[in-house]
């Protein structure tokens, strides 16, 4: 899996950290000892930052490293499918939430699945879930990027809706972020204008808060 500190600023932050924490004894020489066979090949066949000037061809040490700034911008239109469409239509038209139950293991999946991945069979019946639920886990996000629908700080939660067996990932808003803890009760806040997407729920907020 791929995690990481992502913003360009973060790299600078790490460099800063390096300066702040000057090692007491200093790091070993870098690049340090690599055994002889490797080192020979290394210097013959490769460029390391410290060996660039030992290249046989002079031009290699006089290149300005270019970077091609580009992007991938392919628009996607994902099919929701029959099962998911029913979920989103109920959400959009009636502000109701539904899961789907597997009669094999009695799991009520939210969001609904056409199939149960554990039993590997079709799921069976629709079960109305929520709208309230219990917070299973959460995080308060304090960094920003353009894919986030809210400005930081804001919270994400995994919410176990009443009568569901699996948790729903969503936003948590309209609350004191410092007071969040697992186990509290949450209710969805629906958008006025709904279009059949997961953001038809604006966010969840603690029950009783305002």
């Amino acid at each position, binding site marked *: 899996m791929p995690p990481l500190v992502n913003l360009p600023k973060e790299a600078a932050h790490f460099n800063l950290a390096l300066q702040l924490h000057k090692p007491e004894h200093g790091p070993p020489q870098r690049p340090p000892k690599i055994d002889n066979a490797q080192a020979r090949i290394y210097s013959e*066949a490769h*460029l390391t930052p410290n060996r660039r000037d030992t290249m046989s061809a002079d031009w290699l040490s006089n*290149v300005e490293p*270019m970077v*091609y700034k*580009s*992007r991938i*911008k392919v628009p996607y239109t994902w099919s929701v499918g029959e099962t998911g469409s029913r979920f989103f239509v109920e959400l959009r038209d009636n502000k109701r939430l539904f899961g789907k139950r597997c009669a094999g293991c009695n799991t009520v999946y939210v969001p609904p699945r056409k199939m149960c991945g554990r039993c590997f069979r079709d799921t069976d019946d629709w079960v109305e879930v929520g709208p309230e639920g219990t917070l299973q886990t959460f995080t308060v996000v304090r960094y920003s990027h353009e894919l986030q629908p809210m400005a930081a700080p804001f919270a994400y939660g995994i919410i176990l809706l009443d009568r569901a067996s699996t948790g729903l990932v969503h936003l948590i808003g309209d609350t004191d972020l410092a007071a969040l803890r697992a186990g509290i009760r949450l209710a969805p806040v629906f958008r006025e204008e709904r279009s059949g*997407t997961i953001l038809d729920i604006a966010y969840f907020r603690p029950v009783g808060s305002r």
Partner: protein
Amino acid sequence: MAAEKQELLVIQSGDKEQPFRYAVGRYGSKFFMELRDHKKLLGIRCPKCGKVYVPPRQVCGPCFERMVELVEVGPEGTLVGYTILRFHFVDPETGQPKPVPYGYGFIRLDGADNAFQHFIEIRDESKIRVGARMRAVFNEERKGNLADIRHFEVIG
């Protein structure tokens, strides 16, 4: 089927994009420096098989040899194969339709053993044929990327 027709939804990504900063590398950067500063095209020669490749890259695939010897190639060459694009498609760099029609060809630059691809000028389609002699046309303002070559045109 008598079943009630169900509404089937889609979710759209909208105009989201993924930005990238692709490293051109030493070999490619050298090519673009020469192109930008001197309107020269560079290839690179394999010390083992002697083939000259454009664009320059570090490794000769068949020989698995490291290459360092730069060779000036072109700016003229021979058209190996081509097409004229006439259908609409999304340019993944912009998310917008790519302007068509345009000519697209592989040119074996003089002094090179492989072919180099670029736009080909198509004002007179009758002149374009496999084997035609071609010449690079450079842009006056050059930034150090592939677009510094405007296109290749048929000579004569």
